C-alpha cells in the first residue's frame, strides 16, 4: 500500500479528478463495470466505450468483458474513440506531489482513449504512486520511450474571462481507479 495515496488523492481531487480506491482487482472490476453501466455505455451509436491494452485488462479478460458490456471495444480506432462515451486505460505511475497520472503513451491507442471520449477511466496499482516527477522520469525514461503522457485532472480552460471550465478538447471527467494489491507489471 502506497504511503503516498492520501497526498495523491488530495492533489488529484483538487484538480477535479475523481479518485476511488479498492482492495483487489475484483472489487475494482466490479466498480468499473457498474460505472460503465451507469454512464450508459451500450452498443447504440455514440454510446460505446474503448479500452486500451494493459495487464489489468489481460487479467479481466476481453472476451468476458465484451460479453458483459455491449458497446465495449478493445480494438481502439480513431473513429471508435471519437464516437465513444468512455475511454479506459491503465497508467504506469502516479505522482503524489501533483496528483498526476503518468503513462508510456507510445502506442496511439493509449492516447485515443484518453483524449477523445468525454470520460476517461484510468486504472493504476496502489503501489505505483511516487513522490515527484523526477522519480517517475527515472522509471519512464525519455531516452527509451517516444511518448510519455502526464495527466492531472480533466481537460480545462480559463481562456474566456479567466473562468475555469472543464472539458475543452479532452475528457470532462477523469475517474481514477486505484487498486491495492494489484501488482502491475510494466506495460
Amino acid at each position, binding site marked *: 500500500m502506497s504511503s503516498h495515496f492520501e497526498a495523491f488523492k488530495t492533489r488529484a481531487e483538487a484538480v477535479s479528478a475523481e479518485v476511488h480506491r479498492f482492495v483487489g482487482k475484483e472489487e475494482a472490476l466490479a466498480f468499473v463495470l457498474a460505472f460503465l453501466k451507469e454512464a450508459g455505455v451500450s452498443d447504440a451509436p455514440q454510446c460505446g466505450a474503448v479500452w486500451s491494452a494493459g495487464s489489468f485488462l489481460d487479467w479481466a479478460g476481453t472476451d468476458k468483458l465484451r460479453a458483459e458490456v455491449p458497446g465495449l471495444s478493445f480494438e481502439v*480506432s480513431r473513429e471508435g474513440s471519437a464516437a465513444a462515451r468512455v475511454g479506459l486505460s491503465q497508467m504506469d505511475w502516479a505522482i503524489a506531489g501533483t496528483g498526476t497520472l503518468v503513462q508510456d503513451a*507510445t502506442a*496511439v491507442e493509449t492516447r485515443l482513449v484518453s483524449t477523445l471520449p468525454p470520460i476517461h477511466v484510468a486504472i493504476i496499482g496502489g503501489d505505483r504512486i511516487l513522490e515527484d*516527477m523526477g522519480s517517475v522520469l527515472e522509471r519512464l525514461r*525519455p*531516452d527509451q520511450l517516444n511518448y510519455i503522457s502526464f495527466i*492531472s485532472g480533466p481537460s480545462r480552460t480559463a481562456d*474566456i474571462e479567466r473562468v475555469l471550465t472543464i*472539458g475543452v*478538447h479532452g475528457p470532462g471527467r477523469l475517474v481514477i481507479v486505484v487498486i491495492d494489491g494489484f501488482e502491475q507489471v510494466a506495460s
Partner: protein
Amino acid sequence: MTTQFRESIETALHNPNLAGALGRFSEAYRTSRAKAYEGIDFEAVRDQIVEIKASASSNFEVLAERFKASAEARGAKVFRTSDPAQVKKYILDLAKEKGVKRVVKSKSMASEEIHLNKAFEQAGIVVDETDLGEWIIQLAHQTPSHMVMPAIHMTKEEVTEVFNQEVEEGQAPDIPKLVKFARAKLRPKFLQADMGITGANIAVAETGSLVIVTNEGNARLVTTLPKIHVAIVGIEKLVGLVKDIQPILTALPRSATGQLLTSYVSIISGPVPNTDGTPKELHIILMDNHRSDMAKDPMFKEALQCIRCATCLNVCPVFRLVGGHVFGKTYTGGIGTILTAWFDELKKSEDIQGLCIQCGSCVPLCPGKIDIPRLILELRRRLVVEKGQSLAMKAIFGVVNNRRLFHSMLRMASVTQKPFKQGRFIRHLPLFLSDMTDFRSLPAVAEVPLRDTIRKIRQPEGGEKIAFFAGCLIDFCYPEMGESLVKILNKAGIEVLFPEGQTCCGAPARYNGAYEVAAQNARDNIKALLETDVSFVVSACPTCTVALKHDFIDTFRSVGETDAMEAAGKLAAKTIDFSTLVKKLVDEGRLTFKEGEDLGKITYHDSCHLKRTLKASEEPRELLKEAGHEITEMYECDTCCGMAGSYSLKLPELSAPILERKLKHIKDTGAARVVMDCPGCVMQIRGGLDKEGTPVRAEHTAERLAERFK
C-alpha cells in the same frame, strides 16, 4: 513616443472590460501563485532554473547539435535555421510535398513570432488554432494580448460576437456553452487535419525530447491525430538533460497559472505510430532568429533564462491598466519588450519600453531571475545612443549636469512659482503643464533649501561623522525631512555633514537613457561625498540611495568608464538608507525611544527601490512600531504609487490611475496617516490626497520619528 501610441494608451485606459479583466486577474494571481508555491523553496527552484538556462545559453551551438543528433537517431527530422523565412519555407515545402490541405496548431509563440498563419493562408492551406484563446483571437483577427492567456482582454460578450460572426450565428454569452461550442467545432478539425503544429516548452538535448504543456489537451490531439507533426522550437528552449525538466516544470505552471502542474504534459522523443499503423513524420525546427546574438550580449544573455510564464505581465502595475495590445507586440509585457527589441528590432521597442515604470515588482518573482527593469533601461540607453535624446531632454539634462546652474534655477523657482502656490502646494499649472497637476498637487519649492537651513543647526561635534546625501526633492522641496534626519542622528551623538558639492543623483538622466549625463552626476557626487572622512553616507531617498549604492557602478560599466568604478565601489560600501541606519542605531542602544507612547494607527507604503533593491521593508515598520504606532497594512502595500520620477511627468495618464488605486488602498485601512521612506512617494501620495481633499496625512518616516527619541 508617437501620437498613435499615446492614443492606444488612451483607448486602453477607457476600455472598462480590459481594466476589469486585467485588474481582477492581477489581484487573484498573487494569491493563487502564492498558494501554488506552498511547501516549495522558490529561491532554490529558480537558482536551479538559472543554472540550467544560463548554461544552455552559453552552449546553444553544442546543445542544438546534440539535440539534432539525438532526435535524428530516434527518427525525427531536425532543421536548424536562424531565419524565420526559412522556417516558413520549410513548412510550406513540406506541406506541398505531402499534399497537406488542413493544419491544426496548438499554442506556439514561436509561430506567432514568425507570422506562420499568414504564410499558410497565402499558400491556400487552412490553418486552425486549437488553444481556445488562440482560436478566439485568430477568429477575431487579433494578436495575443498575453503570452499565457491570449484572449484575456475579451469579455464573453465579445467572444460570443466573434463566434456569431465568424463561425455560426446563434451563440449566447454563456461561458460553458461557448467552450462546448468550441469543442464541437474544433473536434472535426483535429480529425481531418493532415499536419499538426506545436511549439515546445522545453527541448532536451540528451534525448532529443520535446516537452509540451497544455491544459486543454489540444497538444495531445495535435500530436496524435494528424500524420505529420511539426514542432517549432526557439533555441532558448534547449536544456542539456532530462533531469533539467523537473525544476522548470515546478515553476512554469505555478508561476503561469497558479497550478501545481498543467492538466497535460507530453514528452515526445521520437516518431510514434499513427492511427493507421504508419509511423508519424516528426519534424523539429530549431529556430534561432537572433537568440544566439542575444546570448553573445553580456547584458541580454540573461533574458534567455525566461520560461515564458508571464509573471512579469501579471504583477506589472502598468500592464494591468493597458494590456498586451499596448504593452508589447507578439510577445507582451516586460519580457515581451525585451524580446521584441531582439527578435524584431530595437526600434520596435521604442514606444513600449517607455511603459516600464521601473518599480521592480517582477524582479523577485521571475523564475529565471531576469532583472527585466534593468534590461529595459539598457534598451532605453541603447535607443538614446542610436537615435539621440530629444531636444527637450537635452536641454533639461544640460542644466542638471551643471550643478550651479541647476541649483540656482531651483532657487529661482521658489520665487517664480509664487502665483501658483497655495500654502506648500501647487494645485494648478497652466497650459501644457496642467497634466502634471491634474491628478495631484505638486509641492512648492521651499523658500530656503536644506543646504542653507542645515548650517544653522547646532550639532554635536567631535564624535562620529556621517555625510548626508539629500537628493533634489529633500534639498529643495522638503527640507524638513532632512532636518528631521539631522535631529535624529544628533540624538545618537552623530554630526551630520552636508557636502556642498553634492548634486542630482543622476537617476532622472539614467532612467531616461541619458547615461553620459548620469555618469557626470555620479563623478560629481563621488568627489563631493568621499572628500571628508565619514563612517556612512546616508540618504532619506531610496532612489538616491540606490543610485549611490548600485547605479553609479552600473552606469560606469555601461558607458565603459571602468576606471571610475573603484571610487564608486567605495561610496557604495558606505551608503545606507535612513531607516536601516536608524534601526541599527536603535539596536546598538545609541538611540532610545521615548517610553509609553501610544501614537495610534498608521499604514505604511513600501517604496519600490527601498523594498526591492535595498531590501528594507521591516526596518521602517519596526521603528514605527517601537515608536508607539500600530500599523494596519494596506492591500498591495508594496505596489508602486505611480510617481517613479519623471514617469509621472511623461505618462501622467498612467501615473494617475496607479495613484488612484494606491489612495484607495490607503483610505481602506482607515488610518489617519500613511508613512513612507521616499520623498518622491510623499510628493505623489501627499499631492494626490491634497487634490482629493482626503484628510489623511502622508509623511516620511524621518518626519514621523523626529520627536520620538529621548
